């Protein structure tokens, strides 16, 4: 389609004007100066006018027409380029860099090149921001964990320092107690040393007494030995008396026998003989009594000698023991002296220990304060890490509003999945299989589901490894209506992918966000919405 430009009309009018001026000029000259004007002038002016017209046509009109056609072509191409550029910019506005790149083929080389550079720059920038935001999130998570661990460790350290402080205070008290006891021990050791000296003197006196006793025991033993000898002499005398008594007895018997033989003449003699026999008998009985007494005496004497020997042995033993005791007391005195000195040193050392313990307690209190401040700082750091994590998430969500040629671009990723699902949207089991495969390949996904154009959920799969055995709320499940959800409305309104701001999951109670993409059929008509809920806690694994 061509259009007559004003510039072309003006050219035609100029040509007509020149022709009319040439012809008019010839007519005016012929009428004004009929005799004086030569014929060649009257004839030449129109010729010149026609010549001028021809020159004009050749030099002005025809190039102008060519230029106008060229300009029209440029205008048409410009209009097309502007349309394509507008569409590309609209795709850019929507953040769909993939679609924007697809629009490059409709642009001129210059525009295509510029658009490609711009899209690439934006892709690079957004991809870099995405990657950096994830790195920031990971770093903030690591900082958060580290800060939490350090905070926990600091708390434990604070508790440990408090405990150590209490222990050191106890140690200080114990050291003070030990110092007191050591001082008391030193005094006792001094007293004991004095008592040891008195004991040594007493033992020395006891030794002298025991020596004297042993001498007396020896004297008693000698006296007993002498008594034993005298007893044996008495035994000899008794034996002699007994012998005499026996002889007397025999004599009296013989006298009685003779008196009996003498008959009545011997009766008086028999009486005497019987008296003699009785005396001999009494002598024997007396000897027996004396011997019994002497036996008792000898027995007692032997017992006494034995007792004396035992006493002497015991006295010797006691003497040896007393000497050993004296040596032990001497050693004890030395030990007590050393003990007194050691106790004084212990008292001094424990006093120094108490002072050192006090210093340690003071230092520990300072450490406790530092640890407390550190714990507080770590808590602040943890909070800052949380904020950083939130900021990373916000940046990530901001970047996820763009669709890039990147596996980290959720819109692009799940649009790909929506294209795979598109042919199976009406087959529940097949759709469910795709959704399960999606969760397997994207473990950071909490739930994924498919909603038809009426907003009714037709398929639903939960990541059981993430939610465990938690029950689904009544409002979630196949057959439930989601037409009022912003992500559904967004997709149905703009036919594009939507990333929602973070919100609290009704199932896990944790923060999550939803990526919703339209599922288009072969004709490009939206026949459903694929929704993917991503847990904020695991979004850094994208």
């Amino acid at each position, binding site marked *: 389609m061509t259009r007559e430009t004003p510039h072309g009309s003006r050219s035609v009018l100029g040509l007509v004007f020149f022709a009319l001026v040439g012809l008019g000029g010839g007519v005016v000259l012929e009428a004004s100066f009929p005799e004086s004007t030569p014929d060649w002038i009257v004839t030449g002016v129109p010729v010149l006018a026609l010549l001028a017209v021809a020159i004009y046509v050749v030099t002005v009109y025809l190039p102008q027409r060519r230029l106008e056609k060229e300009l029209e072509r440029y205008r048409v191409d410009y209009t097309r380029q502007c349309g394509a550029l507008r569409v590309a910019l609209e795709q850019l506005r929507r953040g769909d860099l993939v679609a924007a790149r697809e629009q490059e083929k409709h642009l001129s080389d210059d525009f295509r090149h510029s658009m490609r550079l711009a899209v690439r720059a934006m892709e690079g920038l957004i991809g870099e921001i995405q990657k950096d935001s994830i790195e920031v999130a990971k770093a903030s998570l690591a900082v958060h964990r580290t800060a939490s661990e350090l905070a926990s460790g600091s708390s434990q350290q604070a508790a440990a320092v408090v405990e150590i402080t209490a222990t050191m205070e106890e140690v200080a008290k114990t050291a003070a107690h030990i110092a007191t006891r050591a001082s008391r021990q030193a005094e006792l050791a001094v007293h004991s040393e004095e008592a040891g000296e008195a004991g040594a003197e007493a033992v020395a006196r006891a030794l002298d007494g025991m020596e004297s006793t042993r001498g007396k025991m020896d004297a008693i033993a000698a006296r007993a030995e002498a008594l034993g000898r005298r007893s044996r002499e008495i035994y000899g005398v008794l034996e002699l008396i007994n012998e005499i008594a026996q002889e007397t007895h*025999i004599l009296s*018997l*013989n006298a*009685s026998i003779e008196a*009996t*033989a003498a008959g009545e003449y011997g009766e008086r003699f028999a009486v005497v003989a*019987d008296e003699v026999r009785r005396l001999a008998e009494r002598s024997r009985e007396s000897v027996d009594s004396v011997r019994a007494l002497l036996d008792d005496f000898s027995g007692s004497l032997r017992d006494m000698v034995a007792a004396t020997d035992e006493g002497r042995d015991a006295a010797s033993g006691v003497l040896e023991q007393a000497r050993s005791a004296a040596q032990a007391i001497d050693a004890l005195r030395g030990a007590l002296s050393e003990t007194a000195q050691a106790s004084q040193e212990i008292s001094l050392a424990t006093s120094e220990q108490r002072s050192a313990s006090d210093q340690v307690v003071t230092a520990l209190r300072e450490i406790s304060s530092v640890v407390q401040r550190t714990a507080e700082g770590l808590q602040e750091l943890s909070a800052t890490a949380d904020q950083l994590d939130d900021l990373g998430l916000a940046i990530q969500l901001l970047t996820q509003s763009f669709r890039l040629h990147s596996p980290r671009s959720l819109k692009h990723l799940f649009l790909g999945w929506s294209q795979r699902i598109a042919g199976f949207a009406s087959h529940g089991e097949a759709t469910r299989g795709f959704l399960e495969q999606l969760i397997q390949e994207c473990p950071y996904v909490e739930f994924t589901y498919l909603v038809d154009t009426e907003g009714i959920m037709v398929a639903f799969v939960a990541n059981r490894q993430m939610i465990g055995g938690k029950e689904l709320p009544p409002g979630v499940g196949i057959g439930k209506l989601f037409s009022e959800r912003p992500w559904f409305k967004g997709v149905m309104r703009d036919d594009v992918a939507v990333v929602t701001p973070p919100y609290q999951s009704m199932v896990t109670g944790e923060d999550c966000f939803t990526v919703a993409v339209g599922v288009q059929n072969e004709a490009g008509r939206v026949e459903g919405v694929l929704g993917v809920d991503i847990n904020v806690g695991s979004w850094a694994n994208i």
Partner: protein
Amino acid sequence: MTRAEYLLVTMGGRRCGIPAERVITVLRRVGIHAFPAEEAAFLGLARYSSDAVGVFDGATLFGLRESPGPEPAEPVVIMVSGGAGRTSEPFGLLVEEAERMVSVGEEGETLPSPEEMLICDPANLVASRGRDKP
């Protein structure tokens, strides 16, 4: 009842009465020299009044035991007469103890029971064995 005198001795642990008319004398510390003989009670020979007389273990001789026991602590030899007279055919009886003379009769003391005093008369002993062997 006529009056009778006995020498009260101890033989083989028993108290025995030897009639006084048979007792010649009582001896202590008599040296007994062993002499071979078939008689179990024969202990040996002893010197008495320039004669050698046989000495017998009283208890064995009177049948109170079969053979002589150990020598007593205070051996006493009672010289008794085995013949008709008081001093005829003397021989010795080794006893453990010669206690005293006891008189039994009208004015004497009561004779101990047989369990308390066994009458051991050498004359009966000689009579039963023949006069050659007291």
